[in-house]
């Protein structure tokens, strides 16, 4: 190769903007946040002291943290399971429909590009107990006697929050599955047809196994996104009623910006990061193991 010496300076110049942004906005705050988790810092006051592992001890004894963790895992799992089912189903549907399918794929994809503020608001408007459409229809069909606002009823709030959560995250899953389905070579299907395989046999024996690595990849990405997601729950319920939908992100946000306990909030966020990292590493190990099996 030519220009090795000159290349070094160019490399640095080319990498500098990206590297600077990532180091100052991601890496430095990350380290800073972990350091603050060992302090008793209160809001922006600069006099604080290191308290060792005290914050982490508090986490262990905090029942609200445990509740938020369980809620987060619950919301993440429900969303991912429904996303995968709906995303895969719609991918099969649009892929089998030729050029009309391409058009509908765009229509089905639109919720993904909508802002969380609008999604949360649109669903709150649908759920509204005075003038909302869902209550109107349910009353009209005599399914309920009194109008209800599902967001303030602890037995209804979970489906009410899962529906929008799935609604604006399934499109990505659909898109990736649609591309993966297309990458299965048609000759494999033709061979199966010649061998006299039925449609359901083809589906279970060819299509599904070919989706294995896509499925793992999509699931890992979704765990990263959903576990840390904040907007929808914060905008729709703020964790209520009575903490029944409180997720880790929302609890940490409240601790930092409403109760101003920065040290404790950072400790919880660090714990959350560690949990997420362990889960993702486990997923990768399973993924690599599965690859070797094949």
């Amino acid at each position: 190769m030519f220009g090795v010496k000159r290349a070094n300076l160019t490399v640095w110049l080319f990498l500098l903007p990206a590297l600077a942004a990532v180091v100052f906005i991601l890496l430095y705050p990350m380290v800073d946040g972990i350091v603050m988790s060992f302090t008793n810092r209160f809001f922006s006051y600069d006099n604080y002291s290191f308290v060792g592992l005290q914050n982490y001890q508090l986490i262990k004894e905090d029942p609200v943290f445990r509740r938020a963790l369980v809620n987060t895992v619950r919301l993440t799992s429900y969303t991912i399971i429904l996303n995968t089912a709906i995303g895969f189903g719609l991918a099969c549907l649009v892929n089998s429909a030729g050029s009309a399918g391409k058009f509908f794929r765009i229509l089905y994809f639109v919720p993904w590009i909508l802002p969380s503020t609008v999604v949360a608001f649109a669903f709150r408007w649908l759920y509204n107990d005075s003038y909302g459409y869902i209550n109107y229809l349910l009353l009209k069909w005599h399914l309920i006697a009194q109008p209800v606002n599902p967001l303030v009823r602890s037995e209804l709030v979970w489906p009410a929050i899962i529906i929008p959560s799935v609604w604006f995250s399934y499109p990505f899953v659909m898109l990736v599955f649609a591309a993966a389905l297309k990458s299965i070579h048609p000759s494999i299907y033709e061979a199966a047809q010649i061998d006299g395989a039925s449609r359901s046999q083809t589906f279970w024996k060819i299509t599904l196994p070919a989706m294995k690595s896509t499925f793992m990849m999509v699931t890992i990405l979704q765990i990263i996104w959903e576990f840390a997601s904040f907007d929808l729950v914060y905008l729709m319920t703020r964790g209520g009623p009575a903490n029944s939908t409180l997720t880790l992100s929302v609890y940490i946000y409240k601790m930092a910006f409403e109760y101003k306990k920065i040290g404790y909030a950072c400790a919880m966020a660090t714990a959350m990061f560690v949990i997420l990292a362990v889960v993702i590493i486990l997923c990768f190990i399973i993924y690599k193991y599965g690859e070797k099996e094949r």
Partner: protein
Amino acid sequence: MRDRPISLTKLILMVVVALVIWIPILVTFFTSFKMRSEIATLVPALLPETFCLDNYERLFRVMNFDVYLRNSLIVASVTSIISLLASSLAAYSLVWLKFRNQNIFQGFTLVVYLFPQILLVIPLYLMCYHLNLLDTAFALILTYLAFILPFGIWMLKNYFQSISRDLVDAARVDGCKDWQCLLRVVLPVCLPGLATVMTYSFIMAWNEFMFANILISSNSSRTVAVGVQALIGNHGTDFSLLTAAAIMMIIPTLIFFVLIQKWFIEGLTLGGVQE
């Protein structure tokens, strides 16, 4: 692509699914054209009696919604242009300028994806507070850049790798500097990738809520995501006004998406399938 005619049942199924998925959007859209008096009725119709633009007028004349739109437009366009520049430079050096510790840099750009935003926002808030950057567009642009760049670099790297090496080497033999190679040889053949990164960063910066909510405090510097939320807080039951605000907020991203959807969808799945 074989293009067999599809069965009627499949077509009907797809239309029904599309309608079900679009319910929240359609309801919001039609509500925004209803008169204020028409909202407070016990028998809500889907379509407004008369399409009136009253709500949109109120939004701009009384609520200064144009200020929010302008702030968001500035933040989103600057973010998408800078992220395009920075990520194509970085992706170029990853693909064509082999350097030591390249794997560390590449691994690093993926690991930062795992950092929970809620952990970053607390120190970032304090950092901006100390640097006097709170309530500025600069703070938002910088934050969004850092979140978009790992995705942009990764995406463009995939595109750049699909170009034949000879093309770039030939340009170098002809005496092209690296920046000329990038500008004249690489970028022109990677337009779909550039469009994807640009659209993604524009939409992400336009829609982002949490950081904008924390880093921006004054009404005049609010982005549209925070502005809509503030309107909901102040006019919670004025649904005709709020739905108009929601529609105004999604129109720019919808236009952007419709124009570039072919490249955008292709680009997103390219990144996804190649992992």
